[in-house]
């Protein structure tokens, strides 16, 4: 099998202008991946399947990953003009200070594909695609027309992560019920508060127990530990 760099250059040769980026994987597994630009992902996928040498005819696994927006606090050097009394006279002085500044790194939803070849018996090659953000621009092209095995897995990712696959023939929720509104595999999902916490030594659980107690209200929970 070709190395990942060779596959990348093969893709670039076959589809000029295809946005392919090599993402190294530092773990000992050595499964490096290629990040595709969503715009020409279907082209690339078709090439990978139909190329006689690569022949990735078997899409094994489709995964969604949630990368929530991170709030990064960093120190930035800022130059500003301040009025200060210098030598008894009020003057405008320029001065450079370090100031903590919060920056929100936008989150995204990522979909990871693991491809193998049954004809050539090689693999895997890992592809990934990212949405623009996590809220409104969550469309990615569907590869179901190319590999049918993506059908249910993409539906599952739509259900649990909220990625909308354009071109999917039957995009409905797979696991949760029809009227369900949330995307529970997202990392900021808060599950409904519907169980009684058992006595435990973990403070975080006790805090949730107290919140639960307050929420259900009125029902006496004798000695829930948190209160006593």
């Amino acid at each position, binding site marked *: 099998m070709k190395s990942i760099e060779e596959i990348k250059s093969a893709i670039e040769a076959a589809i000029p202008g295809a946005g392919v980026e090599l993402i190294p994987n530092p773990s000992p597994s050595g499964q490096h991946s290629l990040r595709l630009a969503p715009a020409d992902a279907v082209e690339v996928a078709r090439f990978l399947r139909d190329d006689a040498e690569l022949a990735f005819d078997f899409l094994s696994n489709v995964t969604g990953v949630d990368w929530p927006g991170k709030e990064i606090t960093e120190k930035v050097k800022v130059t500003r003009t301040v009025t200060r009394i210098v030598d008894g006279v009020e003057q405008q002085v320029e001065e450079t200070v370090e100031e903590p500044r919060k920056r929100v790194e936008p989150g995204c939803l990522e979909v990871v594909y693991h491809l193998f070849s049954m004809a050539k018996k090689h693999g895997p090659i890992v592809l990934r695609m990212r949405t623009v953000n996590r809220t409104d621009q969550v469309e990615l092209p569907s590869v179901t027309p190319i590999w049918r095995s993506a059908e249910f897995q993409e539906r599952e990712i739509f259900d649990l992560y909220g990625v909308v696959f354009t071109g999917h023939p039957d995009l409905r929720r797979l696991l*949760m019920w029809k009227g369900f509104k949330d995307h529970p595999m997202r990392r900021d999902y808060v599950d409904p508060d519907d169980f009684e916490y058992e006595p435990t030594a973990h403070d975080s659980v006790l805090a949730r127990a107290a919140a639960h107690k307050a929420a259900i209200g009125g029902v006496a929970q004798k000695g829930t530990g948190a209160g006593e």
Partner: protein
Amino acid sequence: MVDQQLKIELGKQGVLVTTIEELYNWGRRSSIWPMQFGLACCAIEMIATTMARYDLARFGAEVFRPSPRQADLMIISGTVTKKMAPQVVRLYNQMAEPRYVIAMGACAISGGPFKQGYNVLKGIDRYIPVDVHIPGCPPRPEALIQAFMTLQKKIDAQPLTGEGRPRHLDAAAQGEFPVPEQGEHDLEPTSNKGVWPVPVVIR
């Protein structure tokens, strides 16, 4: 009602004395047909219980009826998810009285190892009354047989009148249980207050 002492005496003399109550309880306890209804891992142990090694048929309970109308016993064998819970309650409503429920395994009792899950119902007794709980994950077939015998003992001890009579002989008792709706975030309501009051945690 025949005095218990007198009955034993008569039994020694070869006279069999019985009452309608005993006959009725004997009949329904000896012929409990479970519903062919498996949910998860425990279903495999439930099947194993009916197989040659453990043979639930010895108790006359191998007649697994697939139709809820003809079944007496519902073995909740495994995790009840929020997507499945309305169906379980509906099936229970479809069963004919007298009907019994065994909650088999940790998941059916409380959600078990999957209790933290967003789609897992934290115990089926939130919606329907359960006669026997068996702990275990999954319980061994012997445990299911034990539960079965416990249920038989429970039936035997039920008087037909007065306090402690079976639910189906109590005109005031609830016959049909409300089926929960699947809401936007959770089941609505999250429990049937008539069956399952929110428990009081005591330490």
